[in-house]
């Protein structure tokens, strides 16, 4: 209950701040020096937040689609031998630093949102893939046996039994990816993607702690809200299959 109230308060605070950042200026003034502005006004915070969220959303959808598809393929009898390969690919995606991806992608794709999307997509594959794999392989053998014994085709088993039962675990993976991407997206601003990183970088360049704080704060609150939201979804999905 208190959790829910806290979340509501955080959401209201965030919306109020984004709607009218100027009215929060007194809050950030103590962190400025030499009469520097307390609130970043180069680009509207609201529009930065929306484009930040848009990038993350796109990247998470892409990693989820690819990672879940990959997990499905390598858990079918025909694709089982590709499991080690798929594991390697997704692990490399995770170990390769996003900054390095940006550096490599910019010469090919140019500045802007493109390289950031690629970096986030690669970075987000592993959590979803590993969780989808765990969800698809860790199912009750009796349920599988019953599904087969009643005459469901492999495709029907996948859609009607395996995926619904793996859903809570897959959602956990998506949650991890979403939260990681939300933070990582800030570095996209180094290659001119429109993200909240712009505020943070501006603050770092001009030694204005207020900018760094407000950029970090918005990202942080959104991350917590998304984390909580996904947990609700997972609990709902788990309760539906009797694991609540």
């Amino acid at each position, binding site marked *: 209950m208190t959790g829910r109230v806290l979340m509501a308060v955080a959401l209201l605070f965030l919306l109020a701040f984004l709607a009218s950042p100027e009215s929060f200026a007194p809050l950030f003034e103590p962190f400025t020096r030499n009469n520097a502005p307390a609130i970043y006004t180069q680009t509207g915070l609201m529009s930065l937040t929306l484009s930040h969220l848009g990038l993350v959303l796109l990247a998470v959808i892409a990693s989820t689609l690819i990672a879940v598809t990959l997990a499905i393929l390598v858990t079918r009898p025909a694709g089982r031998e590709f499991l080690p390969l798929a594991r390697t690919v997704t692990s490399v995606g995770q170990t390769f630093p996003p900054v390095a991806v940006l550096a490599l992608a910019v010469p090919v794709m140019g500045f802007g949102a493109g390289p950031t999307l690629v970096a986030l997509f690669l970075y987000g594959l592993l959590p979803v893939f590993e969780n989808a794999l765990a969800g698809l392989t860790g199912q*009750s053998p*009796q*349920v599988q*046996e*019953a*599904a*087969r*014994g*009643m*005459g*469901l*085709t492999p495709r*029907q088993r996948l859609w*009607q*039994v395996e995926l*619904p*039962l793996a859903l809570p675990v897959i959602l956990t993976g998506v949650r991890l990816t979403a939260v990681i991407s939300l933070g990582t997206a800030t570095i996209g601003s180094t290659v001119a993607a429109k993200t909240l990183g712009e505020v943070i970088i501006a603050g770092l360049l001009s030694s204005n702690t207020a900018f760094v704080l407000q950029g970090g704060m918005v990202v942080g609150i959104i991350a917590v809200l998304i984390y909580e939201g996904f947990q609700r979804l997972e609990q709902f999905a788990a309760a*539906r*299959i*009797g*694991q609540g």
Partner: protein
Amino acid sequence: MIEIQNLTRIYGTTAVVKDVSLTVETGQIAALVGTSGSGKTTLLRMINRLVEPSAGRVLIDGKDTAEIEPHLLRRQIGYAIQGHGLFPHRTVAQNISTVPRLLGWTQDQHRARVDELLELFQMEPADFRDRMPHELSGGQQQRVGVARALAARPDLLLMDEPFGALDPVIRAKAQQDLRDIQRQLGTTLIIVTHDMEEAVTLGDRIAVMDKGELLQYGPPSEILTTPATSFVSDLIGTGDRPFRLLSLTPVAEIIAEGQAEGAEIPREASLRDALAECLWSGRDRLPVEGGGIVTLDSLRAQAAPTARAAE
């Protein structure tokens, strides 16, 4: 009629099922008994082709099952397993109507069928239809599992240790209910069990398996009185033999003329029940409901295998 002909299954170099042939008449219950690793489950799973036979074939009413697509074959055959295997994300009604929906029944048809089955298994449809499996007791889950296997009115029902996860009291009731329902529907039933007691209670025919081979196949009385090998007699357990034999016959079959004191015993009670009642109440004759008596002497005669052999 189910004809199993020279069925063999080989994994690597070991034969899990070796050249097994047996026939189950329509409407009968065949119990496959054996220790774990005897090949009984593999034999069962070859009937609906969850395991493909290495050699031999299975005919259902004269039709070779190898000629039917496996998933289509399985939709015609009921299948219930230990631990029920209910879909945890689906309601009781959705679970039961799984096969009817695969077969393309209309919504009205499968809804009516769900209610009919829930009533058959003594579960109030309005109360149980929309529950999730985890909201049921173990006994109820097991009943829903069997109801699901019977949903599309299969002529053949396969069961793999369906009562294995139930406690003894519920198990006895579940066996009785299954027997009644099977008689009522006329379904042919093949059931795998490691429990000879269960096989004797349920089976019209018992198949005893060991190390992939079929040792003996016959009616319970034959298995009990003339076990083919020492393995079969071990499985029966010599101590329980006379009681199991008595449990096969109802009191009605050995009623004699006469009068007796005390409480009456129902006509459909087994001789084992009658013997227990005699011993417990210290009587040597019991009145039977609807007239006549059973005597301790006649019970004694029935408990010896020689009496059976002479018949």
